[in-house]
């Protein structure tokens, strides 16, 4: 059960494709661990109010906020990460002086950089995760990753981001105006003029200015990226894949699993949400004796429909289990109501946590 997966963990990262209940699962894990005496913070970078919704809060700000729940042995906190602000804080931290900081923060290229390098939003979330982990105010951090198909882009983002600021071509921008271009050669000059025609952006001016101010900070960035990578690969971190039993979600889960394995990251297991249940055996009494004929027929039709879906889900999950090498899979049944409050989270938790603990 998930409490075993997370027994010695300090960080839990929930990944999976969109619409599989990742936010809800993150919240249910955080609530359950808080009930078991841990001080837990659940983090999301999703500005849609999914996490606030599932914790029964009206809004969730960028500051950590304590969720008051009766009967917890530990504490539950929640926050929304603002990637842009995190990036600003990092610049602030690394900038040698105020002038450089202001030059970077007001640069147009910088202002768009968080969108420019694929996965950099996710990467910023990792930076913040690392920072919170360093501060050590929580026993466990649970991260809800963004609902994109490329939710694991952040695995590549540190490399891409440092490659971007490190690349030889880019470094030359940090040289005094004109000199960089000469070093890059005449061909590059042509590339720029053609580029300006093709993109309509005076990249030479904007990027030149950006890298002149940013150049001094690349070392700091590289070091941070290294630390973030170490945290992700640390044995105190656990990756949990969230999926639904539908075909495309399962395909994504297999792919996510491969990526985690390739990157050598600590994979704990899969949580499969909304699994249709066979509904139990037919009861002792014949339905026709209990109900009138027409109602009994409707009941049997419903039962057959459910069973067909349950059969599909069972086959899909068996296939998943085979393809990820028999790693643990926890199943959460398709609950009557979709989960969007603390009671719903507790109900979901009953399928994720062993029952010997608190609650």
């Amino acid at each position, binding site marked *: 059960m998930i409490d075993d997966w997370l027994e010695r963990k300090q960080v839990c990262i929930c990944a999976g*494709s*969109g*619409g*599989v209940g990742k936010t809800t699962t993150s919240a249910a894990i955080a609530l359950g661990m808080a009930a078991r005496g841990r001080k837990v913070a659940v983090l999301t970078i999703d500005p*849609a*109010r*999914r996490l606030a*919704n*599932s914790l029964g809060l009206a809004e969730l700000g960028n500051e950590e906020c304590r969720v008051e729940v009766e009967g917890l042995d530990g504490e539950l906190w929640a926050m929304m990460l603002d990637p842009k602000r995190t990036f600003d804080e990092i610049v602030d931290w690394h900038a040698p002086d105020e002038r450089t900081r202001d030059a970077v923060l007001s640069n*147009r*290229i910088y*202002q*768009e*950089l968080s*969108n*420019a*390098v*694929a996965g950099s939003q996710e990467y910023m979330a990792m930076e913040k995760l690392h920072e919170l982990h360093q501060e050590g105010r929580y026993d466990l951090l649970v991260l809800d990753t963004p*609902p*994109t*198909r490329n939710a694991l882009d952040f695995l590549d983002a540190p490399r891409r981001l440092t490659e*971007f600021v490190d*690349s030889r*071509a*880019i470094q030359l921008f940090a040289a005094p105006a004109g000199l960089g271009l000469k070093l*890059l050669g005449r061909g590059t000059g042509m*590339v720029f003029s*053609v*580029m300006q*025609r*093709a*993109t*309509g*952006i005076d*990249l030479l001016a904007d*990027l030149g200015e950006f890298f002149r101010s940013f150049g001094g900070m690349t070392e700091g960035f590289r070091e941070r990226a290294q630390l973030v990578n170490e945290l992700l690969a640390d044995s105190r971190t656990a990756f949990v894949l969230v999926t639904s039993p539908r075909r*495309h979600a399962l395909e994504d889960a297999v792919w996510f699993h491969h990526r985690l394995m390739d990157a050598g990251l600590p994979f704990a297991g899969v949580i499969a949400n909304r699994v249709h249940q066979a*509904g*139990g*055996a*037919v*009861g*002792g*009494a014949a*339905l026709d004796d*209990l*109900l009138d004929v027409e*109602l009994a027929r*409707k*009941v049997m039709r*419903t*039962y057959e429909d*459910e069973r*067909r879906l349950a*059969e*599909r889900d069972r086959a899909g999950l068996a296939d998943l289990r085979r393809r990820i090498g028999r790693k643990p899979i926890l199943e959460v049944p398709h609950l*009557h*109501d*979709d989960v*969007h409050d603390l009671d719903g989270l507790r109900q979901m938790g009953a399928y994720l946590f062993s029952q010997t603990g608190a609650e």
Partner: protein
Amino acid sequence: MVVTGKGGVGKTTVSAALGLLAARAGKRTVICEVAEQEQLAAIFGVAASEHEERELRPRLHAISVDPERAKEEWLRYQLKSSALASVLGGSSVFRYLSAAAPGLSELVTIGKVWDLAQLERRTGGSEFDLTIVDAPATGHGVAMLRAPSTYASVARVGPIRRQALTIDRFLRDPRRTGVVVVALPEEMPVNETLDLERRLRDEMDMAVDRAIVNGLYPERFSGADAERLRAAEARGGGPVRAALAEHERAHGQRSQLRRLRRGLEAPVTTLPFLFQPELGPSQLDELADRLGRSL
């Protein structure tokens, strides 16, 4: 026609059903999948799109837009020279810098969609009467629609700026571009649909034309039926429990549907939950029939 909504609500399914409906009505239609999804070709059993238009049925086509290929097309068009475009495309400096050009990827993607919708295609392709975009989930969908206006404010050079503005005007013209939001009759998808209508209005000055609520369970049991089922639950076993569970779900869905109808300005259409293990072409036809009756 832009089809968006929360992740996992069935945007591709609804896009396909709308496409089938339009094609039956005699419109030459193309469905664009973006954001590295490519599901339609597989569902209809045709070769993967790889940025090419594929015919799924008579008059119905699908394309999966690849941002890199769209960028090349855009370059060729802007530079009016494929030689220059390939020099540029092969330059590593260009690869880094085009990644840094804010919103370029989204712009060329929506630019491709815009091109598909033009009577005179600049890529020289055939013309369509209707272009359906199976857009990314909520937040990313809005970002894609906003890309042309963002880009127009960043670009300094005339023609590109003008072109971004042309696309932006096209998207915001309610006579030419419609927005369909797909939802499920559940708490969080309903919240996101209400939020999305607000955001499109506030940030883009765009209205949602229609919400399509997917996966609505049938109401097989009346309140009196449910009473009798509860009385029989202990002895009836699995079938009775399954019936009661479905009854409660159908009931909960209807209260979410009412909440959506109350809060949303756009009209709401529903599609039934199909008790099928996976959706294939015949289920999509069935959903198109339903839409045809209710739209």
